[in-house]
């Protein structure tokens, strides 16, 4: 397998003005030289092979979109090197653009007033897609999703889900080597999310397209990514197989219980009572979840303790989810 993306020690700093409040402050800002440096991306390296789907994760504002903008060539790294398909993205932006596709969840590259098929035709000419490739990819699209009703609909009349779907199809249209998806499932309902995941999965399989996916939905990660990269505050935290991730903190399991009485109150009590097991207690409408590190405490012991103190009406045991692991990494970092 060849490396399609090579990133070596890239950093990106933003110089931002320290703004002051109020009218007087704004006036002062006009002449201010009071800058602060934001290290949006801090010394990140990775290499990605053709055909991989990589989940690029991290809490809000940690530099994911900034990294993607550097890989696509919109931003120039402050330091470090990037090669995307042999191009230096910033220097050869237009050339690089021919090899990549992008979807930014909140915006659309489609022509708002025109029916979808017109946007596709336009992209066909802009990317100089041959008639044969265009027809064959349209055939593939038709076999994967029901686009017929969308094709003649102006984009501005589409729902968010339909538009996102269309945008993803548009990004794959010129058969790019790499597609960057920045939060493609943001704001979509469960069924649309799963349709979009299936679509991305199929396109990756069919075309061997490399996919870099950022998302805050671990469902996307579970459904699509074998490898995940996590960054926090611009720094690399984790880069490995998703399977490896689950064993990363030792063996975790989640004990879910439903006590009698007010569930919120009971969970507050439990938090204190289970302190010595160093178990994390969280609560939703139905269940209190207790995340247990089996190297530190036995599930049965914890359950016994809970039963002593509470009237447990129902319980179940779950293996740790990707969501839980990621949450733990975001909150505690990697030792």
């Amino acid at each position: 397998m060849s490396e399609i993306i090579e990133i070596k020690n890239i950093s990106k700093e933003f110089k931002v003005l320290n703004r002051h409040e109020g009218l007087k402050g704004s006036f002062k800002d006009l002449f201010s030289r009071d800058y602060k440096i934001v290290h949006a991306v801090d010394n990140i390296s990775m290499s990605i092979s053709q055909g991989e789907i990589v989940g690029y994760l991290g809490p809000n504002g940690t530099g994911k979109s900034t990294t993607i903008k550097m890989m696509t060539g919109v931003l120039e790294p402050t330091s470090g090197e990037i090669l995307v398909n042999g191009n230096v993205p910033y220097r050869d932006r237009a050339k690089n653009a021919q090899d990549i596709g992008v979807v930014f969840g909140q915006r659309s590259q489609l022509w708002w007033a025109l029916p979808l098929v017109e946007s596709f035709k336009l992209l066909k000419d802009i990317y100089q897609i041959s008639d044969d490739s265009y027809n064959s990819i349209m055939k593939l699209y038709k076999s994967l999703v029901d686009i017929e009703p969308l094709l003649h609909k102006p984009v501005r009349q589409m729902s968010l889900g339909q538009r996102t779907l269309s945008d993803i199809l548009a990004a794959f249209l010129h058969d790019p080597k790499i597609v960057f998806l920045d939060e493609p499932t943001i704001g979509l309902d469960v069924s649309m999310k799963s349709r979009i995941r299936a679509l991305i999965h199929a396109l990756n399989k069919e075309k061997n397209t490399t996919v870099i996916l950022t998302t805050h939905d671990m469902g996307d990660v579970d459904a699509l990514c074998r490898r995940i990269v996590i960054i926090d505050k611009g720094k690399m935290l984790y880069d490995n197989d998703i399977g490896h991730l689950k064993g990363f903190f030792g063996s975790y399991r989640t004990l879910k219980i439903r006590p009698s009485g007010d569930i919120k109150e009971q969970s507050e009590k439990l938090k204190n009572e289970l302190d010595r097991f160093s178990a994390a207690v969280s609560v939703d409408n139905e269940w209190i979840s207790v995340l247990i590190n089996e190297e530190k405490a036995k599930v049965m012991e914890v359950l016994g303790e809970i039963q002593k103190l509470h009237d447990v009406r129902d319980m179940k045991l779950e293996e740790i989810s990707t969501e839980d692991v990621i949450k733990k990494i975001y909150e505690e970092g990697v030792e």
Partner: protein
Amino acid sequence: MKIKRYFALTRAGILESFQYRLAMLVMIAGNLLYLTVVYFFWKAVYSSSGSDVVNGMTFSDTLIYLVLATALFNFMEMYTVWEIGRNIQSGKIVLDLLKPMRYRSYLFWSYSGTLATQFVFTFLPTFIIVCIATKGAVPLGTNLFYFVISVVMAVIINYAVDFMTGTICLYTESIWGINIMKQVIVLLLSGATIPVAFFPEGMKKAVGYMPFQSIYNTPLTILLNEKPDFTEVFKALGTQAFWCAALLILSSLFWKVSLRKITVNGG
């Protein structure tokens, strides 16, 4: 064929502008209102001067000039500054930068469809009406041919000025003020609101060294010139060609430097 992508953008622009029929009607109505004001204003100027010819132009000369200048303005105004500014603020510019084309040509060709529609629906009808209404005051000879060449260059110069102004938005993030400033400067110094013939001597000279009059004054003068004098016409077209080249190079450099600077500083 590379050229195909440009015409594809033109085509999309034409399709798009037909989606906004109401906007077109509003624009035509606004024009009529503006032209009424122009009519009464200049009527007052001429009657107060007490002479039929002011600065070598009769009342109907002036009126024809200004009506056509307005038509030309409506056809050439591309709102590029707004477009760039809005795209920067909304972040949509990222998607435009990721097209496998240069941003400046991408934007221009995206707008060329609107340009074509505006030519057919605003300039051409006005021109025909003026021709018929003035019964031959507008000469219809070789001047038309020169006029077309001149207008093409005027469009390019106008776009380059707009694009440079739009580039400033990368620094300021405010569109409104910059756009108004550009508008006022271009409309005044180009001869779109007052014929250059009316400018005081010193200003006429100063304007001669600027690119603005190449946008409106040059094409209109060529159009309204009954017996075009070759050397004069070629001098005018040559000046336009010079500004085309100079501004295209300048706007390209300015954009390159700015994009780099801005992406270093954020924004």
